[in-house]
């Protein structure tokens, strides 16, 4: 059956309030031989300025592809992405380039996302140079200001290269670089999953500080529900390219409606030896996105699946105030 356009946009807010509104986004990859992977299928989402939207799901659910598609890296197969009132999927190459400084990204592996031959000052200065911002002295002052704001001492770090830093420090440098052009939207793709637990908290706090200092709107991509709890305004759970559930963090954790969300919540390791192993532990792994199950994509691993789930795809609908779920048999 075909997806109706209106079915999965129940959670969207009026477009005049939003900084970013994505409707019916599809990203397909052609594998050759007639095989096509639909990595992101008909996803809609929106962001109000100053919000942090977290996108959570397992490997292969399309969360990173979605993040990159927003930046047109590469451009999505279909759907619209309205950023600050303009549909950027329809822009010419030149116009799109002019929008890019307002949208930046930081990546999972901070060490490999920095050029190993560039000293820190050059890495952070590069975006300013490309966009001809200020003269050499002004740029140098801006680099110092950025390094200071991410908690690095410019005098100590300016001339050093990435291999001389820990993963957490490299992530700080990446954040400084992403902020150089004063973006509106920052997409963070698993920014802390390569870091130690003790360093994760530092980077999460830093992102919160930067959000306030630079007036950022954040998209935070992660596989770990516990990590995004503190930083998010809204959380969107994805499975095999589709949206399962959207809610505020407190609502989502205390009252998960989708069985997949509930399993994700149950998988978070808890530092308490007395705690019994969760009964909701998911069996198996997500099916191949090449050949997704009919109807609800989660039905093959879902404890509550019925025949209806195999024949009809559930649409996002309101479950509670600001809480939307795509499930035929939501949890109580």
């Amino acid at each position, binding site marked *: 059956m075909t997806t109706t356009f209106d079915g999965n946009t129940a959670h969207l807010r009026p477009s005049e309030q939003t900084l970013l509104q994505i409707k019916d986004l599809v990203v397909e990859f052609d594998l050759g031989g007639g095989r096509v992977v639909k990595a992101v299928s008909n996803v809609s989402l929106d962001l109000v300025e100053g919000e942090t939207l977290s996108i959570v799901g*397992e*490997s*292969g659910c399309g969360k990173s592809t979605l993040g990159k598609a927003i930046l047109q890296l590469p451009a999505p197969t279909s759907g619209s992405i309205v950023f600050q009132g303009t549909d950027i999927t329809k822009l010419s190459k030149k116009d799109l380039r002019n929008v890019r400084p307002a949208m930046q990204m930081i990546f999972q592996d901070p060490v490999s996302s920095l050029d190993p031959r560039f000293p820190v000052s050059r890495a952070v200065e590069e975006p300013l140079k490309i966009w001809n911002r200020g003269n050499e002295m002004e740029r140098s002052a801006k680099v110092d200001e950025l390094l200071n704001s991410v908690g690095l001492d410019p005098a100590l770090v300016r001339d050093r290269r990435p291999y001389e830093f*820990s*993963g957490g420090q490299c992530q700080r440098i990446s954040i400084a670089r992403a902020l150089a052009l004063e973006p509106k939207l920052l997409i963070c793709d698993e920014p802390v999953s390569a870091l*130690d*637990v*003790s*360093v*994760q*908290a*530092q980077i*999460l*706090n830093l992102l*919160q500080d930067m959000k306030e200092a630079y007036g950022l709107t954040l998209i935070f991509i992660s*596989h*770990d*529900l*516990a*990590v995004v*709890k*503190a*930083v*998010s*305004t809204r959380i969107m759970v994805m499975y095999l390219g589709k949206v399962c559930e959207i809610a*505020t*963090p*407190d609502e989502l*954790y205390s009252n998960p409606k989708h069985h997949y969300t509930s*399993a*994700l*919540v*149950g*998988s*978070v*390791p*808890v*530092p*308490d*030896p*007395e*705690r019994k*192993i*969760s009964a909701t*532990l*998911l069996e*198996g*792994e997500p099916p191949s996105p090449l050949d997704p199950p009919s109807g609800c994509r989660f039905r093959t691993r879902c404890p509550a699946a019925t025949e209806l789930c195999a024949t009809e795809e559930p649409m996002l609908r309101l479950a509670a105030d600001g809480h939307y779920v795509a499930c035929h048999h939501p949890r109580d």
Partner: protein
Amino acid sequence: MTSMLKLENLEISFATNRGSLHAVKGVSLDIDAGESIGIVGESGSGKTVLSRASMGLLAPTATRTGTVTFDGKEISSLSREEVRETWGTGMAMIFQDPMTALNPVRRIGPQIMEGLTVRLGMSKADARKRAIELLGRVRIPDPEQALNKFPGQLSGGMRQRVMIAIALACNPKLLFADEPTTALDVTVQAQILQLLSELRKELNMSMVLVTHDLGVVAGHTDKIAVMYAGEVVEYATTKDLFARMRMPYTEALMKSIPRLSTPSGSRLPVIEGRLPDPTKPEPGCLFASRCPYAQEKCHTQHPDLTTDSDGHQYRCFFPLGAAQ
């Protein structure tokens, strides 16, 4: 209980161009047969070097003093060949990144069968049978077909299951798991930890679980050693450690774990500062510069490992929960 692995006063240093780097400092641990121990610490705490040293896998640039006794034999007194003999049948290891640990251009089958034919002298047909059984044991669907796949055709979680199958192939007495779930999704992490725990009990194997996450070791170990800057700073049974942590570092590590109960919009507690430079020895407690409870004595004197009446060890002058 008999001791499976005993480390006594183990010291490991590496020669670097910035001087000698002291990676492991005076570590003594004892792991009994069938027991599971967690070694917890941040990057650079020496936890990986410690587990590699126990297996005799240190780089030639390393200098080691102290003793490692495995199953009654002192590892350093053994020849290279004798150490090799213990790998697979005695000790085995699984690594953090299953993609780089597996050979990408060989099919799964031969990679599992290699240990069986070389170490146990099995025929190819027997090894194949055993490999299928092993893959079933680590819950890989359709094991016979999986034998013909390349690592790149499997997901991260499935690759880690293959690593576990390889490690278990020759029935080791002791399994080292070095950050076995760090590269995996949370859902798969829960499955792999559960699998390791079940297999350990089934095979009555000892296990050393190395991780940076206290949440990972909580439900899956009998004892925990917390390492900081190359030293063991707290060592207790898992139950006792979580019920009554004595070391401020352990407490800080515990607080920094992101939890589902964290209020949204709140700041997470962090451990300020960084690990001390391992090439520059400090006189006092190594955690003093980051410790919220540090007093003058902590900066000038190095605390020894103190043992409570109940065997709980900690390295602190002013342990938590003590009368001040």
